[in-house]
């Protein structure tokens, strides 16, 4: 593997995820972006915090792949 391929692989997967596309790599799994909405969270000390929204990378391993 040359570095050009690795760099391109990284950029393509990232760019497609940012477009909200799901990247499905055979024998590995699916990469996608999950959006978590802004929500309130109550702490043990009674404080209620407004947690900002976040976009997270979510990976689901392919279960049918090679062991």
């Amino acid at each position, binding site marked *: 593997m040359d570095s050009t391929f690795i760099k391109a692989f990284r950029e393509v997967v990232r760019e497609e995820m940012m477009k909200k596309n799901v990247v499905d790599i*055979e024998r590995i799994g699916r990469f996608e972006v999950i959006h978590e909405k802004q929500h309130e969270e109550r702490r043990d000390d009674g404080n209620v915090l407004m947690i900002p929204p976040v976009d997270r990378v979510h990976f689901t391993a392919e279960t049918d792949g090679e062991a």
Partner: protein
Amino acid sequence: MKIDRKKLITLICDKTGMKPESVEGQLNELITQIRQASDRGNALEIKGFGMFYHTSQGELTFDPAEELKTEINYKYVGMESVEVKKPAAAASPFPSSDKGGKKEAKASVDKMEHPLDNEEKNPAATLITSIVVVLVIVIGIILLVDFGYMDGLFSREQVVLSPPETTQSEEAPESIVPDETAPVITEAEEPASPDVQEPADIPVSEEDEVASAESDGSSEGSEESEAPEPETETVETVVEAESSEELASAGPAEGSVTPFGLYGKIQMIDHRFYTIVVHSMQSESRAREAAGELSEEGYRAIAITVLHDDIGQMWRVGIGQFATIPLAQRAASDLPEEFRENNFIGLIQ
């Protein structure tokens, strides 16, 4: 849209100019390395992308690199949690002084209840004091009995305790009754007036926002039961005023000069406010352009710059000015669908 293996190879070819056969071969090699490394209990890291490894349950897992996390979350990067509600005890406008007062009062009561604490440290002094006190009492009783003062004492008490008409008029209970009632009235009024007035002055900026957010936001505001009634009333009055302003500006009221609202023009106000962020972008010109378009649609639109360590300068476009988060949330729920599904409330300081 789903990017499968074939599409992925095409995209990499487009980006690098490499031949599809070469890209396919290297992709296969990468997949094999990921699986082999994780199968051996090792991890394979692609710098700037993330790490593949197997969990203890044998499941292939991917941990994105911080760089990737930031790039994916670029729209919301730099956002921090906002405290909506403080604990009930801390929500009181006078938490520390009240607690301190209680502690001081308790301490003074303790001292009064144990006046001999210091003397107990000196047993001889305590013994002598006790003997002297007993002697004085005994001598006093003997004198009273011998000289008939006990009878006079009882008769005086009876005069005071039983209120004959002559005693009431002569000894002027008028002077007693006002003396008893006056302090009661004074004590009741004096704390009441500062309680009503002070919160109205204090929470103009921060406390007011928190309190109004609580009372306005769903059912959680009802938990603020420890606050005295006058404070609650004061806060509610403020909220109603804000709400009415909101309602007044619910439609695209051009020329509106209210400090808060969804429509109209952004008002420059001294204290912080909340806005509904509907766009995040890195280009200032695009942000200003988007804000301009929203402004033409009648919204109070604002472009805000955010500086982030990884991404650098970012721009966010918000619509509306709101005193509290619940008011902003309520307005956000009534936005057109394009904004309703993808927005967040930001704090402008």
